[in-house]
């Protein structure tokens, strides 16, 4: 029978995705980029919408929330999963509102006046059944997928507006977005890139080889030399893992030092981040903010005699406060860090911030 088969098939896929997430974060499995994760999550959510059994929007949202909680628990540092889930939940709300015929768009926006005057909005429980809802939701998710596929290109298209010729650009670690950005600028302009290698994983090395293959003059420096060479740098362009709700970043470790050095020399710091990295988290949640990997990367087991008497830390991420950032470049254009809260209110519904 198609029903149970589909369901087992669905659960299998979800389980496969969860174990992939768990493995991917430890650094041992194949490292997948955030864009890939976002696409896979969205595709999986589309499948859930298509194959799971639900009657009303509320049911669907419950199912998605449940699966979403499991997914985020599998790999808390991979915030794109949570972001995509929240996007889809918002899509469902919108489609539901459209089917109902009411112009819910305006009510969704938070304004103090609305909060005080209309107290009964949260009575909405999404229990009405609409036949066309499924098709609409799946169509909207398809649109989301198209948008996801085009993010890197949209960001790279803006490269020539920000890079002039004979510049010295600094970057850290490896970001596929920044790589595409710089390669696109290289088509018309000539400039020099300095890459900080970002120990202990040294992703900067791969970035440098890729850039030099694309005919860009590249220099690799150690993390310790970031401040030393910063006086000759014109711009700092970095990627990030997550953009937080206050406009700050959760980026690879060493980025905070880079941002401070850029601030000291008044060098602009540009962050290339697609919209699916925007997360409604705030940096104060200490227990979930930092992620650590094996200290073997920092102090190998060959140093056995002292290893047991020493604490070794190997954090993966850094927090960069929004005051140090000059500009965000995303697939919908450039923004200042102070505008991020507004973008977030357009992408996610406030009730979905907590899954």
């Amino acid at each position, binding site marked *: 029978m198609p029903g149970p088969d589909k369901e087992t098939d669905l659960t299998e896929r979800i389980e496969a995705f969860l174990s992939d997430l768990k493995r991917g974060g430890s650094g041992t499995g194949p490292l997948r980029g955030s864009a890939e994760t976002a696409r896979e999550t969205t595709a999986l959510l589309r499948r859930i919408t298509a194959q799971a059994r639900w009657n009303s929007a509320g049911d669907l949202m419950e199912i998605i929330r449940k699966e979403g909680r499991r997914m985020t628990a599998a790999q808390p540092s991979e915030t794109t999963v949570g972001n995509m889930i929240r996007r889809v939940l918002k899509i469902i709300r919108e489609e539901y509102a459209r089917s109902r015929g009411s112009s819910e768009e305006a009510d969704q926006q938070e304004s103090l006046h609305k909060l005080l005057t209309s107290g009964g909005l949260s009575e909405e429980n999404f229990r009405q059944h609409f036949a066309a809802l499924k098709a609409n939701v799946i169509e909207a998710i398809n649109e989301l997928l198209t948008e996801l596929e085009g993010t890197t290109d949209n960001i790279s298209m803006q490269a020539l507006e920000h890079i002039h010729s004979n510049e010295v650009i600094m970057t850290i670690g490896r970001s596929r977005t920044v790589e595409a950005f710089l390669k696109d600028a290289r088509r018309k302009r000539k400039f020099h890139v300095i890459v900080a290698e970002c120990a202990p994983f040294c992703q900067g090395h791969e970035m440098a080889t890729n850039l030099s293959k694309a005919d860009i003059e590249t220099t690799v420096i150690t993390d310790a030399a970031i401040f030393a060479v910063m006086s000759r740098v014109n711009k700092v362009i970095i990627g990030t893992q997550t953009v937080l709700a206050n406009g700050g970043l959760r980026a690879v470790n*060493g980025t905070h030092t880079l941002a401070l050095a850029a601030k000291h020399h008044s060098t602009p710091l540009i962050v290339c981040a697609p919209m699916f990295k925007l997360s409604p988290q705030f940096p104060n949640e200490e227990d979930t903010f930092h992620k650590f990997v094996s200290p073997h990367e920092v102090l190998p087991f060959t140093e056995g005699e002292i290893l047991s008497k020493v604490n070794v830390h190997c954090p993966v991420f850094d927090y960069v406060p929004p005051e140090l950032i000059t500009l965000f470049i995303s697939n919908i254009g450039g923004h200042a860090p102070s505008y991020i809260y507004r973008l977030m209110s357009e992408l996610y519904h406030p009730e979905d911030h907590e899954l």
Partner: protein
Amino acid sequence: MADSGETEGPGNKDVIERAKNDGRELTKEEKQRLRKEKKQQKKGKEKKDDKASQDGEKREKKPVSSASPAPQPATQPPTQKAPPAVPALVPVPASETPPPGDKPAKSKAELKAERRARQEAERASKQGKKGDVGGQQVAAGKPKAPPSELQPVVKRLPEYMQADNPEVLKKLAKKLERQQIPLRSDYGYKVSLFSHLHQYSRKAPLTQQLSIPSTVIHPAIVRLGLQYSQGIVAGSNARSVALLHAFKQVIRDYTTPPNEELSRDLVNKLKPYISFLNQCRPLSASMGNAIKYIKKEISNIPSQCKEEEAKSKLLTCIECYINEKIILAAKAIAKSSIEKISDGDVILVYGCSSLVNHILCEAFEKNRKFRVIVVDSRPRLEGREALRRLVQRGISCTYVLISAVSYILPEVSKVFLGAHALLANGYVMSRVGTSQIALVAKAFNVPVLVCCETYKFCERVQTDSFVSNELDDPDDLIVTRKGKTQLEHWQDVRLLGLLNLVYDVTPPDFVDLVITDLGMIPCTSVPVVLRVKNVDQ
């Protein structure tokens, strides 16, 4: 000699060639003859050039070449570092009067007087012209300095900062040839911002890259040079102490040749050794100060002193220097620093500084309760050495890499840093990464304390880490992770460069306090200390 065109006495040339091939040290007469021949050639060439063109390059070679024989005559007292006798080494053109024909009949003193008069005239005309960019930095400095208190410091740009100037390289090659020291060649592609510095490879030991004439250079110095070039002896204190011990050995084995004075000949003996050590690894500021001290002591030996007496005097001088400036200074600094360490402190240190390790061990002996965070960086990973030493004493330590410093800094209460040198404008020159740590500490409002002995204070000024630095072997950056070496073939890729800096400068506004053996001073008081030291001497 390569450029011996029209020489007189081909017999002399053969003798000299033979001596060089044997690796034997040229006798004094042979050296003098060589010098005279070269002077003749140069004078002949210069006359032709003067008539032919007013090219700036040739002109800059002239004041350089006419002054270069000046340090050679042994009669000159080297105490004053020869600024009055070797002035105008600045590559500024406008030497109006061509040098008169140099008749060998004239005595050396007369020649020197002539040269001095010529150079005074040149300097006067230069003051009037003030044309070239190169001359401005020195020429501008001189008229501003009031003649009463401050001597006009004629700065000769050191060779190791001019690796992109072919003139200077040629001059260096000739000087090394004269001293019979082999020249070391640069390795690998140099990042364009640093093309003025040398970059050597450390993969093969020096003995495979150069042929070191063992009879010319004392074996203790050869060993020292190899230890420097391989990084076996590293750290400014260790290098200075090793240098002084090697010089002690040289002095012990030294015998004054007949008809020579110990005070002058020994200094001349030391010069090729210093050139050789410079080839192995550029000298540090502390080593430079130590060498200056030794040269001064040697030249201050009265001429009627017997050799044995003189030698023992020198040995005790060197012992004294090591004891006072390094060992006792460390004790004094430790005593002052321990007052700054309180119970419950979390102290952050970077890399391996012998002085900072000493301070922490002393504080631990005095039963202060603190814990240490050791920050380390690639590719040298010197922090592991510091970690071993501290853990052996029983101090509880944490270890992170420099990219994690902004994660760990909220826990830290104080930062202790060591220094390689303290510059006269208050900047701290230290291992690369120190300025970064100071920057992040400042952002988190954590006090930064620098510990430095006074013998490392130096009169140079510098504002960034580019103009004077050391480039280490770029291959050190290559790392193999998960079986893949990304940068393995970086030499084949034309557009890829690796940069391995050794030092950087920290601005004084990041440093809160400098702890020296003279007390605790702010960063900006360094020139005051230098002045007090100069007055003492």
